[in-house]
């Protein structure tokens, strides 16, 4: 117990150093072992040894499930960016301690499901039990079980929720048809949520994950709709003349930001989840679009071309205190603040290519994270960990979704196939 506590404290202390990393990590070509300048202390990730996952009873189903759980938990820990993940026999050399993860699976007395699963987190090599969880998953709950435990391990390491149970909504298709799809954060579990033979774009999750607001032409002209993720039921929120675009659910879920043109120029509005207008926030003869809440729910960032080119601005929720955020670049759009408030990500267009930029909300530490090999990269959206970003890029031909790790600078591809995937939104 005391050891576990000591480990947790140590792990948290290490994690506190994370924000210092990006520059260093980049300079060293993405190596995971990094020297913090002033202390010369090496470390950053916790070593996690994926140990035995054994079927105690239950035959083949239990054996396969044990292997599957091991694979998914290991992958979750790897994707969190917080761990060096190794197999049995993995020899941690860089850390004074490390963790081991083990599991057992038991079959029911008759039939295959539900199984009884025990997942354990231990110290290594002295094998003190830090965390143990028991689950009884049905056949379709194996992935969720693994994700849930991975999140527990992350919470143990950094004290905050992991992203293993999050999902990404996006628009897939081309021509006259684009539909809203959802995929698990690890690329599994792809499902389609609309099928109305028209354009459906720009999804955004409600904070509780129960609804997805999206812009659709299903009524003949553009409107904002919301679908229930559990039932697939769709309801119109607002369909004013002109644009009904770029909805962003407030952190408390009680209202949305949207851009409406209502027969004039697009302006930013706050509306209720029932589609009633609460307040108009901007008044200008220019284009005002892409509103996105700050995590404090009191401010927002949006795009205006009132200066002659699209640029980013901050504003408070009453429409006052407007200030310009970007002065670099002739075309900046699609800004979004990270959930921890530490970063703003947006798209910038240089000549013909659109790229993803990450910088501090004050404008410091600006860096273009996609180089020209990424061709057009658009529509960044933050994971709730404030560390991972999903965006769309057509680097391989059709636009596909990719995930960027702001701390380490690495990328991974999230969606595959020939149809274009655009406007991703990470769940909260």
């Amino acid at each position, binding site marked *: 117990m005391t050891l576990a506590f000591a480990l947790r404290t140590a792990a948290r202390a290490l994690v506190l150093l994370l924000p210092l990393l990006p520059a260093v990590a980049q300079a060293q070509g993405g190596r995971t072992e990094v020297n913090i300048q002033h202390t010369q202390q090496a470390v950053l990730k916790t070593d996690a040894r994926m140990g035995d996952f054994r079927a105690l009873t239950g035959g083949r189903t239990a054996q396969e499930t044990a292997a599957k759980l091991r694979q998914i938990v290991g992958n979750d820990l790897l994707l969190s960016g917080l761990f060096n993940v190794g197999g049995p026999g993995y020899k941690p050399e860089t850390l004074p301690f490390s963790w081991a993860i083990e599991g057992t699976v038991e079959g029911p007395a008759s039939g295959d499901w539900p199984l009884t699963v025990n997942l354990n987190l231990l110290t290594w090599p002295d094998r003190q039990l830090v965390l143990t969880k028991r689950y009884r998953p049905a056949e379709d709950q194996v992935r969720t079980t693994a994700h849930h435990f991975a999140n527990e391990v992350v919470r143990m390491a950094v004290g905050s929720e992991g992203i293993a149970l999050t999902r990404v909504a996006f628009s897939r298709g081309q*021509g*006259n048809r*684009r539909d809203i799809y959802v995929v698990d954060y690890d690329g599994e579990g792809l499902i389609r949520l609309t099928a109305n033979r028209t*354009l459906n*774009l*720009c999804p955004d999750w409600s904070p509780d994950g129960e609804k997805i607001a999206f812009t659709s*032409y299903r009524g*003949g*002209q*553009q409107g904002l709709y919301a679908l229930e993720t559990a039932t697939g039921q769709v309801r119109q929120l607002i369909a004013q*003349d*002109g*644009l009904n*675009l*770029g909805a962003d659910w407030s952190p408390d879920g009680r209202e949305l930001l949207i*851009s409406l*043109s209502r027969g004039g*120029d*697009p302006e930013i509005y706050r509306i209720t989840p029932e589609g009633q207008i609460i307040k108009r926030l901007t008044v200008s003869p220019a*284009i005002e*679009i*892409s509103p996105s809440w700050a995590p404090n729910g009191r401010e927002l960032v949006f*795009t205006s*071309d009132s200066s002659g080119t*699209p640029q980013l601005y901050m504003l408070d929720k009453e429409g006052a205190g407007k200030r310009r955020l970007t002065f670099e670049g002739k*075309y900046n*759009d*699609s800004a979004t603040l990270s959930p921890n408030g530490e970063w703003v990500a947006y*798209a910038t*267009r240089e000549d*013909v290519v*659109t790229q993803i930029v990450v910088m501090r909300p004050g404008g410091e530490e600006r860096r273009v994270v996609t180089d020209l090999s990424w061709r*057009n990269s*658009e*529509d960044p959206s933050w994971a709730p960990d404030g560390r991972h970003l999903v965006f769309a890029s057509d680097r391989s031909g059709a636009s596909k979704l990719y995930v960027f790790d702001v701390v380490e600078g690495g990328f991974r591809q999230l969606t595959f196939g020939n149809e274009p995937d*655009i*406007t991703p939104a990470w769940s909260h």
Partner: protein
Amino acid sequence: MRNATTPRLAVVLVLVALALVAFTGCSKKPPVVTETAPVEQPVEVVKPAPKPEPVVPKGPDYANLDPSQYGIEDVFYGYDKYDLDDAAMGVLTTNARILKEAGVTLMVAGHCDERGTIEYNLALGEKRAKSARDYLVSLGVPAGNLRVTSYGESRPFATGHGEADWAQNRRAHFERP
């Protein structure tokens, strides 16, 4: 007032209808004059035709035609632009003349090339559609006959990735609503 005029109008229309039916009936009547007379439909002279609806169509059936079929042309824009150049204004002047005569309701849809972001292009496309709509209205086309929408970069006319294709995609397109 209405009661006085409506029956008279109805009588006139019925007469016109009968006359027309009689006329078409005659002209189609069998072999005598025949040039090529391909398909011989048994002529239905019987109908007492109380409904004089299909009579009138003098010009094209606008409501069922694609606007390009009666001379309406799309207009094109510069990169990141939504203002009209001379060529665009010329096209719109012709369009206005046709639309005033046709009295048909159309959708003006704004389109953009693939460069730039999805959302800004939707806004830019709407600006393009509106600049075309506003110019048509200034030339006397009833504002109520022109609806506006934007597809941004979502429905390209040309799918290549060079200026020739991009130029095709920066347009205000006229379509049936």
